[in-house]
């Protein structure tokens, strides 16, 4: 379970990106965060993954107060979270296979098991056969899918995706939405942000809307 209690985030420089957000996401639930650019969607997702820390209020994940966790404990928590970054954060000097294998390396998987899982993940996003491709040789949408493969390769308990369909055409966006739905169906908690109406229409899940750093609307689908 993820629980935000009056969580706020002020970035150095003074801007308050998130204000008094109180929100509970149950295990296995799927929630879509929507809102205009600058509303605080990415900030909310980063707080849930322990990538950024709340400046006031608390964020609890699996009963653990993230603000009270040390650096190592946070890192270990992040291993169980698959995160799709809005800006991808792919390594451009590594090929597709190596990019997707990175979380498995960190977790200490054997080469054999890692290779098997990497291929399975690439297959899920339609990139099987592109293992050797360097990210620069991939289109924006393919890079995005590579990023999704890296997020799911470690079979996370929680999948957090920041605009995962942002660069995808309708067909691929639909396929990716279905992929997230399938994770949700096998019990993975899925938290994603989007402002893509087509994807939203396809997502049958709870929806939270942010504006100016506060929650303005909540509804199901």
């Amino acid at each position: 379970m993820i629980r935000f209690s009056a969580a706020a985030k002020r970035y150095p420089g003074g801007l308050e990106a998130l204000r008094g957000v109180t929100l509970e996401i149950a295990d296995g639930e799927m929630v879509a965060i929507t809102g205009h650019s600058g509303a605080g969607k990415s900030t909310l997702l980063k707080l849930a993954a322990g990538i950024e820390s709340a400046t006031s209020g608390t964020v609890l994940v699996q009963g653990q107060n993230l603000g009270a966790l040390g650096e190592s404990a946070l890192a270990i928590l992040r291993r169980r979270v698959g995160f799709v970054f809005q800006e991808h954060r792919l390594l451009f000097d590594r090929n597709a296979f190596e990019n997707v294998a990175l979380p498995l390396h960190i977790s200490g998987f054997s080469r054999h098991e890692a290779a098997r899982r990497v291929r399975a993940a690439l297959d899920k996003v339609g990139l099987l056969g592109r293992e050797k491709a360097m990210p620069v040789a991939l289109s924006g949408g393919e890079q995005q899918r590579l990023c999704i493969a890296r997020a799911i390769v470690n079979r996370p308990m929680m999948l957090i995706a920041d605009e995962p369909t942002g660069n995808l055409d309708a067909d691929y966006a639909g396929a990716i939405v279905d992929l997230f739905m399938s994770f949700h169906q096998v019990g993975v908690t899925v938290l994603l942000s989007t402002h893509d109406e087509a994807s939203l229409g396809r997502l049958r899940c709870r929806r939270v809307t942010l504006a100016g750093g506060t929650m303005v609307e909540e509804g199901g689908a």
Partner: protein
Amino acid sequence: MRLLRLHLHALGAALERIAAQPVASLFSILVLGAAIALPVVAAVVLQSAMATGAGFDTEPHVSVYLSLDASAEDAKRVEQAIRGEPDVMAVTYVPRAQALAELQASTHLAEVLAALDTNPLPDAFTVRMRSTDPASLAKVRTAWAALPKVDQVAADFEWSERLARWARLGEHLVGGAGLLLAAAVVFIVAHLVRLQVLTRREEIEVSQLIGATSADVRRPFLYHGALQGLLAGALAVALAAAFAAWARHELLALTPNYAAELKVVFLRPAESALLVAATGLLGLLAAWGAVSHQLRRFARDR
């Protein structure tokens, strides 16, 4: 199992990093090895000098040489005077014939000595002293030198004391140079690792975002630093061993007769192993410092 694999991965990554830049890696290891070899060679030279010096007598004793024309009577009188001194522990009379025999036995001058028709050595007393205090020694020396038929009074251990003092000074110099060069090794390895960290900044940051701890990030760099230290240490031992072999060869060629006295003492295997381990540790510590410092900077910049 997981930890073992993480270490194997890190070791593999470190080897890959060395192999990825073979020329740069080779040069840095050469430079480090040469730097470490310098104090090692100095230590070998010093050890050899001391071993050669140890071949000489270091017991605190005074030699009293009589004139060549001294009679047995004269010798008796001198001996009594010497025994009268409270600092004297033991007095041994060395007749000139015995002195010659000893000299012939212990050095390679046998042929030269045999060619002489008269014994050039005087009768002598070897006096073992209780103290080596320079003031009381000087007093005794002047007193004995003034005795009739005494030709010369030599305090042999002054020479060995001087040698020991020089050796101590040498040890300090070698130690100082060793520390300085150890600092240089730390500095060079830290610099090389820092460059590696900087070129891998994106990889480090992404790894941390998806769950790498500081220890995970540090691990391959620590192996890289330790490997460079180990290789440089091994190279230094090899360079010093080559120097020792060369010096031994040259000494033998120059002074074949003195081969037994002038020896080149190289490090014992355990000492060599210790040196390599120590340079490995220095590399590890340097890498640790460099990565930790750089990670703190990255965290601050974010």
